[in-house]
């Protein structure tokens, strides 16, 4: 395999909690690699730390209350982003690593035209003249499939629909042809027919521009259709990571298995009032992760060891070593999985 473009190692992003009484360990020792040209899906439910992970990569965590712990390491193009001077960081952020956010309504500035907002990054990073930047903005609007780009460039965000605004966000992010695009729930606020348009657009642009995409989502369906590899997060940690076909064919962490069983599926046989297999309980608070394995209070297989000892990421690969890893003691005692859950 080629060298990773982005290497995240033991990332810990903590927050001081509201009353100053404790520490929320939102991201707690996360490691993963992003390779050139691939789409990496970062999946998990609210509060698992997926968004904080992506914001940490760009150092967009508000400090205070947040801080990235010493010992964390985010390497991009041979440099640790966490120790860069602000000026050096700015040269990378929005230029080589760009981000699109979930909420296209609030992430655009209502008092500037979309053209101005797209052109800004090109003026700052590539020192284009205003005229050239405007031409670039029109070109970008055309690239993301907005009709009449020469007119639309002078429109304000409120004159556009949600899907159009998300296209503008993508145009803004891609104007400097970044090597890495971080897409945080890019389609969650959109209707399903518009979501399909945006996912198709991202796929096409990735192929045309050759960038790597970090796709953060709670939707396993979106991941199955778009990602090459998947990282599943729970309680601030990576609990499983694998190539997409492998993860869906052979999910091994009980949380991944439970998450997949929770999803109502359109491709399931039609049975009204069929039961879904949810995961009992709820995600614990980041200021109070359970000891041992963090999933043990909700796990149907948990035994003494799970309550006492935190499992490391264990290798479960059938192909290349390290390609499928799982944070679960079941890998050391697979016979326990066949027993009746909970007994």
């Amino acid at each position, binding site marked *: 395999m080629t060298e990773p473009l982005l290497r995240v190692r033991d990332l810990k992003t903590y927050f001081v909690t509201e009353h100053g009484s404790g520490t929320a360990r939102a991201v707690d020792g996360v490691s993963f690699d992003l390779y050139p040209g691939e789409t990496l899906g970062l999946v998990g439910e609210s509060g698992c730390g997926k968004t904080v992970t992506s914001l940490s990569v760009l150092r967009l965590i508000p400090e205070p209350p947040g801080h990235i712990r010493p010992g964390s390491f985010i390497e991009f193009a041979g440099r640790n982003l966490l120790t860069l001077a602000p000026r050096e960081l700015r040269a990378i952020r929005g230029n080589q690593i760009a981000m699109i956010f979930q909420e296209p309504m609030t992430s655009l500035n209502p008092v500037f035209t979309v053209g101005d907002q797209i052109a800004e990054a090109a003026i700052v990073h590539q020192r284009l003249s205003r005229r050239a930047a405007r031409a670039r903005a029109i070109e970008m609007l055309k690239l993301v499939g907005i009709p009449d780009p020469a007119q639309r460039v002078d429109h304000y965000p409120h004159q556009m629909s949600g899907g159009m605004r998300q296209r503008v966000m993508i145009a803004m992010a891609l104007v400097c042809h970044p090597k890495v695009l971080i897409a945080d729930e890019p389609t969650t606020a959109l209707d*399903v027919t*518009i979501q399909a348009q945006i*996912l198709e657009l991202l796929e096409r642009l990735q192929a045309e521009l050759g960038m790597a995409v970090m796709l953060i989502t709670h939707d396993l*369906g979106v991941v199955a259709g778009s990602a090459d590899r998947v990282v599943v997060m729970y309680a601030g940690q990576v609990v499983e990571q694998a190539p997409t076909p492998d993860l*869906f064919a052979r999910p091994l962490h009980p949380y991944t298995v439970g998450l997949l069983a929770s999803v109502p599926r359109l491709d399931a046989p039609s049975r009204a009032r069929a039961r*879904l297999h949810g995961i009992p309980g709820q995600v614990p608070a980041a200021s109070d992760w359970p000891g041992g394995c963090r999933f043990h209070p909700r796990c149907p297989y948990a035994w003494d060891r799970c309550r006492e000892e935190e499992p490391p990421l264990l290798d479960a690969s059938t192909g290349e070593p390290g390609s499928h890893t799982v944070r679960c003691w079941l890998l050391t005692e697979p016979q326990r999985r066949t027993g009746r859950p909970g007994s």
Partner: protein
Amino acid sequence: MTSSSALVDVQGLVKHFPGERAFFGLGRPRAVVRAVDDVSFAITSGQTLGLVGESGCGKSTVGRTILRLIEPDAGRVLMDGLNLLTLGGRELRALRRRMQIVFQDPYGSLNPRLTVRQTLAEPLAIHHLATGADAGRRIAALLEEVGLDPGFARSYAHELSGGQRQRVGIARALSVEPQFLVLDEPVSALDVSVQAQVLNLLADLQQRRRLTYLFIAHDLAVVKYIADDVAVMYLGKIVERAPAPRLYAAPRHPYTTSLLSAVPVPDPTAQRPRIVLTGDVPSPAHPPAGCPFHPRCPHPKKDARCHTEPPALREVAPGQLAACHYAEEPL
């Protein structure tokens, strides 16, 4: 689905919102928004109708006009043969006890100043069902029925998770012993593992209490799990209505087909034809002439007739209705 066995029978429901004047009320009035435009359906007692569509299609307005939380402009809503829309005073209140609503946002739909106990005691008092210790016992039983520890009665909404709040919202709706529930996107704000718990709870409650549901949702996969019949809305109109297995297996309206094909499936090996619709949903203030779906319609037979003649909702297969001139040749 004969109307004789129907608990709820909605006929020709219409709700048009007047266009507001632009520029702080001084400008010219804007066009009328046809949020609900001649919608009819019946729900058999003990069954679930799934009402699906994208943002702005009018599905939530249908749910609210049925309960007269929004007054409709025309139509009839029959419950056990009584027209809810012409009732007043005491009769209306008696009928309303039998129909309740659960809202999407469990954060916005509970009063932050009330404890769970106060939230649940209010409807009991309003409908003269229970007070004092009697109310306390009923509240404890309700909380247990929705899977919450009765100790939650002392909690405030902000102390609860999203899933727990939604359970309280369901308990509140159940407190007055209704027969019919409007569930307006009841699980779409929840995480997927919690969503599964709440969907299972709704299915259990329906069986135990023989409830009738109108389940409003944008997620066709969720609806597949809970609905007996499904109606698909587009720009204020029902474009297709059928028993759920039929609608999912053999949709006849090109919008239904496109909507189904756009839902992502958590299976990377799935080989499904994907129809990506172009363009956005038009504004309901300016619906296209003819078939409202024609500007986005991918049907190869689309022709001049679709631009001019609005298709009627008609039976195209036993029990299956579709509003498309070419429903006999589905996509």
